[in-house]
């Protein structure tokens, strides 16, 4: 699989050929109104964003999601409420449509309870990889239809937030390293140090340096990837972010009164940890990265790089399939999924059939 995944080329670059002369316009024409047109179109169509949170149970993933989007995406589970730890890794997806100032965002959050919770965590990343590849496959199948939909629903995972337990120890655990290595080639990964309120500021810095060192040693490219920096501005901006990755975050969905202001925070006997206070934790950085500044970039890289890589791999692989019953049922994506390979394409075909049916009904 790896030799085919060559280092992807940078995202977008303005095509400029030496033969196109640039012309001086003698007056105002009104071309820049196209930006407004774009905005109107975007507002009308709405946006889609799919995020996946991965980490062991108890690290505060659901709370973090709730904090990020300031709404009750999930009921954050308190320990000891009789919720059984899942025996196997399951993926749960929830979709919400949220709106702010006329901008509609369809947000899909995928949670992975049971990750890394078993005694033997070997190959626990397989279901996750399988899920991600399945979303790519779905998109690919839609794209190669003859009669395509006007707007192909995008369920591909744009960003995966990986929660690192705050051990403060020397390095990333082997499970983390294995997982990150595999996932960084398929999806944009943003590692965060979870429950950072158990580390002091100095411990945080030391832990962060060690994690960065580890990532470099194992050649793990987390988001924002260095090779996709297009120009000097991007590089400056992204290197600032890269210095602070992984962010040390704290999640909270309760509000408390601090100095007369209502803030989100965790109340403890020794003080209130304000989630949005930069001095307390780096949650604002994470939020800004994911939502305010780099959301479009995350989607672009997923579409232009990861999806294209998957597509190349898929199309290359299918042509070496031998003639016979093997190639009629197209095998699923590269990662072996827990479901039997024969079942998945059929369910996918049935999926599409029902979808086509529902299209007719509409």
């Amino acid at each position, binding site marked *: 699989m790896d030799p085919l995944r060559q280092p992807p*080329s940078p*995202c*977008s670059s*303005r095509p*400029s050929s030496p033969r196109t002369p*640039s012309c001086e*316009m*003698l007056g105002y*024409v*009104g*071309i*820049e*109104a*196209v*930006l407004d*047109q*774009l905005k109107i179109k*975007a507002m*009308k*169509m709405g*946006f*889609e964003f799919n995020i996946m949170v991965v980490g062991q149970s108890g690290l505060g993933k659901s709370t973090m999601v709730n904090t990020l*989007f300031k*709404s*009750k*995406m999930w009921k954050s589970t308190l320990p000891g409420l009789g919720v059984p730890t899942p025996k196997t890794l399951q993926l749960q*997806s*929830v*979709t*919400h*449509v*949220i709106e*702010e*100032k*006329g*901008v509609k965002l*369809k947000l899909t959050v995928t949670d992975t309870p049971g990750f890394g919770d078993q005694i033997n965590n070997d190959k626990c990343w397989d279901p996750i990889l399988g*899920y991600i590849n399945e979303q790519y496959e*779905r998109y690919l199948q839609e794209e*190669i*239809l*003859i*009669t395509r939909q*006007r*707007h192909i*629903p995008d*369920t591909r995972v744009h960003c995966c937030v990986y929660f690192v337990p705050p051990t403060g120890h020397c390095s990333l655990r082997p499970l983390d390293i294995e997982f990150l290595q595999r996932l960084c080639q398929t999806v944009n990964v943003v590692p965060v140090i979870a429950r950072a309120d158990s580390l002091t500021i100095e411990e945080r810095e030391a832990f962060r340096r060690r994690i960065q060192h580890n990532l470099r040693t194992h050649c793990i490219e987390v988001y924002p990837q260095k090779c996709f920096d297009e120009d000097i501005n991007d590089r400056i901006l992204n290197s600032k972010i890269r210095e602070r990755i992984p962010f040390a975050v704290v999640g909270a969905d309760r509000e408390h009164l601090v100095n007369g202001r209502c803030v989100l925070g965790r109340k403890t006997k020794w003080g209130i940890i304000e989630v949005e206070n930069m001095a307390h934790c780096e949650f604002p950085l994470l939020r*800004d990265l994911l939502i305010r500044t780099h*959301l479009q970039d995350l989607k672009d890289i997923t579409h*232009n790089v990861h999806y*294209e890589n998957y597509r*190349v791999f898929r*199309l290359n692989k*299918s042509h070496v399939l031998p003639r016979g019953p093997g190639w*009629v049922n*197209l095998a699923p994506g590269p990662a072996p999924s827990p*479901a039997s390979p024969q079942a998945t394409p059929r369910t996918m*075909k*049935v999926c*599409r059939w029902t979808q086509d049916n529902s299209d007719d009904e509409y």
Partner: protein
Amino acid sequence: MAAKTAGMPSQLPDSEQNQKKDNTRSLTMSGHVGFESLPDQLVNRSIQQGFCFNILCVGETGIGKSTLIDTLFNTNFEDHESSHFYPHVRLKAQTYELQESNVHLKLTIVNTVGFGDQINKEESYQPIVDYIDAQFEAYLQEELKIKRSLFNYHDSRIHVCLYFISPTGHSLKTLDLLTMKSLDSKVNIIPVIAKADAISKTELQKFKIKLMSELVSNGVQIYQFPTDDETIAKINASMNGHLPFAVVGSMDEVKVGNKMVKARQYPWGIVQVENENHCDFVKLREMLLCTNMEDLRDQTHTRHYELYRRCKLEELGFTDVGPEHEPLSLQETYEAKRHEFYGERQRKEEEMKQTFVQRVKEKEAMLKEAERELQAKFEHLKRVHQEERIKLEEKRRLLEEEIIAFSKKKATSEIHQNQSFMVPGSSLRKDKDRKKEPGYRFELLCFDVRACETSDGRTDTEEGRGAPRPRGGLGSVWRRSQGL
């Protein structure tokens, strides 16, 4: 708009998929999250990528296409006047880069050269249709590639076609009707009345109504400005009523009042290009560039291109639904064709290999044959040479024998000569006898001219005798001697 529901992970059983619609629910947020910057992020990315817009101008030569484009974009694109004498319609495309504040626009203007000039205009619109199809084809090819780079791709598909109608005031020409009919399913057509300063206002109204009714009755679908978004619905709807736009193009500036405006000056007045009372140029510019550029591009991509793609792929034999009404994936048909193709290619390769081997064998045989012949010749020549040599040797031997014999003779004759000198008396007596007969007596002196070559000794004796030593071949010299 995104009415299609989100996908669910594969772990959920099929029965729950029907409930997937219900899981998408709205949520209210309790605070400011901050994603209203999303459109800005999108816009920033588009600015970085740059924009691309392609206009096709169809109209007769000299109707004012280039001037209108110059006026539209307020630039002087370099373009030469085309002649009227082209045998076929050609399309000339030129790309320019424009920049306004931070928007980079890559503008491509495609002009039809020689449209409507031929005496027989049957083939006039086919090159245009072919050109548009070729652009779609190029995009389709790029999209179907395995390793593709769509975000880098310079989109050359035509986004809008400005069709220039000549201002006769009566009705559409047949050529116009035919061309527009063949183009309406492939490109967004905006008809404009060119050189509108040749028609009066009342005539113009009638002309417009006539044109629109003709277009409608012939089923030509021209581009309608979109009216589904509230912000621009009103203005678009009103503009739809003004179609086709009557335009005047001019880059010359004329002083009107105390301003310099773009206008055309006539003895009877000045036609101002940007005056809404005079012509619809401002409306065209607004509609084309300021309000609907994005929609034009969108329509091209989602409607015209998809139609082309569908037709093309169906032509090639791909379908979505197999013969038993089970969903057939493009991939499978593609695979089938690919295998077929590979099989065919392999067969051809085998064939070619065999012919190649055959030819090589033949050539080899030929060359061997030639080699053998050469060898035979060589042998023959060698033999001949050998024989010659023997013959020559033979001759030489004979010659040498002769020489030896001759030299022997000469030696003996010399001895006799000497002997005759040593007995002068006898010879005198003989001579005295002969004295009675005064006369000359010729003595034969035989020289061996070859003596100088064969032995030097003899030459000395001859020199001693003081006899002339002629060179050259063997010869006899008679010496006149007085009777002794």
